[in-house]
């Protein structure tokens, strides 16, 4: 068997192993709770269960694929590689905060036009609010394990394999679409967008794929530049735990939060959350394709 076809075989086995548990668990959970889990009263419990068990499945798929195809544990991206890569580690934190800042700015521009800054972000109890944010960022360590689960699968296994069989831009798109489709059972169950939108569930799945392609570009860049999956894990864990909505609920006024709560999910996604992610993805792709400078 040629190297390329062996790699394709490994990709197929990995995808099957990553998709199968989610495809099985999601309907079972819906059945257990008697309704679509993410639009039920128990949505928080569902998010927690999928956030832990579901997100670990790509890592498990990575491990099992290596065992089944007798690949061994080479090129596993598990080393920290801190030396000389401090900038990329810092970028993994700062990029999320930048993304949140842009999303907040877009929210203010599109939906809070006419309100002054102090009306949107009242300064009362700013010290306590800062403590809550710090608390949330530091306690993101809880999300580290699930984030590791996804990153070790997608960026630590799938992306290097895809890059072996196609060009990097194509690999980023294909990898992102696979990652987006992996979320499909959750999107069908109402995750992220609910179920009350035009084109349910296909529009939701499509939007998820677009988001995943954009994020995949930046996360692949982090993994490729450092040779380690941990910067991508840090990005993923802070991204999942400290969203723009979290910052809005802490720093925003009641009026501001009410506007955000009243927004349809798809509209909010398209106008506030997707643009900064696409910008980040574009930066990631450009940096990834940039040829290294030759030393004189």
């Amino acid at each position: 068997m040629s190297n390329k076809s062996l790699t394709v075989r490994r990709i197929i086995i990995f995808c099957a192993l990553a998709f199968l548990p989610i495809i099985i668990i999601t309907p079972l959970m819906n059945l257990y709770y008697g309704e679509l889990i993410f639009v039920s009263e128990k949505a928080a419990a569902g998010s927690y269960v999928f956030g832990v068990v579901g997100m670990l499945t790509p890592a498990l798929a990575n491990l099992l694929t290596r065992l089944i195809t007798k690949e061994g544990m080479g090129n596993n991206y598990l080393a920290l590689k801190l030396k000389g890569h401090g900038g990329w580690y810092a970028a993994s934190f700062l990029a999320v905060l930048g993304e949140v800042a842009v999303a907040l700015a877009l929210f203010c521009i599109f939906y809070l036009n006419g309100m002054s800054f102090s009306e949107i972000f009242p300064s009362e109890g700013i010290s306590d609010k800062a403590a809550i944010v710090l608390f949330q960022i530091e306690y993101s360590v809880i999300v580290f394990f699930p984030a590791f689960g996804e990153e070790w699968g997608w960026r630590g296994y799938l992306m290097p394999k895809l890059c072996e069989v196609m060009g990097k831009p194509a690999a980023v798109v294909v990898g992102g679409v696979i990652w987006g489709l992996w979320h499909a059972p959750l999107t069908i169950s109402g995750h992220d967008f609910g179920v009350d939108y035009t084109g349910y569930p296909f529009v939701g799945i499509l939007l998820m794929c677009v988001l995943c392609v954009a994020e995949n570009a930046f996360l692949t860049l982090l993994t490729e530049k450092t040779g380690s999956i941990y910067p991508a894990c840090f990005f993923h864990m802070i991204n999942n735990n400290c969203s723009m909505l979290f910052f809005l609920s802490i720093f925003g006024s009641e009026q501001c939060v009410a506007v955000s709560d009243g927004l349809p999910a798809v509209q909010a996604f398209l106008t506030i959350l997707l643009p900064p992610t696409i910008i980040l993805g574009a930066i990631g792709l450009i940096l990834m394709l940039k040829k290294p400078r030759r030393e004189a």
Partner: protein
Amino acid sequence: MRGLMYKQLMTFRVPAEIIIAVQLLMAVTGLSVYQNNTARGDRSLMAAVMIVPFILFSMTNGELFRYDEREKWCCFAASTPQTLKGQVRVKYYFTLAAHSVILFVGMLCDCVFVGVTGNTAVSCISTGVLFYCISLILNALEYPFYFRFGSDHGGQVKAASVWTIILLIMIYLLFGDISLLLNMELPDLNSLINNSSLMMWTMALLPAAAAVIFFLSYLISLKMYRKGMESYE
């Protein structure tokens, strides 16, 4: 380092197995008690699943040191490529790894608990992270003693330090000004914990403090090990 980690795992295998077994047993018991309990808001058992393994680790951490406390072994360890630095570092790596495994298993148990009950109010994952940090700090305070005086004597020095602190507190409680505590009622104490700005900042800074203290402890242990190895038999 991988070899040293393996050696450490082998020397700590029995306590590690006991800790994980206790954690899983408590989770299963907790779930069955919860299922048969009418007080659905009770989450004390889940909190125990998160806290007790860290306490067990702190009680048994002397095992990490016991097999290395021989003068000739220290001389041999110094001649290995990892040098004495590696011998000290591996204790800290292993402690961090063990704590992470405990937290991970706790998180899985917590996840099953929440999944079965469909109630996120029973989740104690924040308690787990809190004790993860506290336990790291406590271990970081102990290790320099272990390196300097050996696990037996280090344990005694540690116990003496703890008792001295308790004694000082008791002396203060007997003769110091405790009017603030006497005038405080229980609801005030709860609100102090839940709403106080100081408490919030303490909680927020705890993980960062744990990381700094853990690193400082490693630096101190490096110096202590060199002194301590001369006193090993």
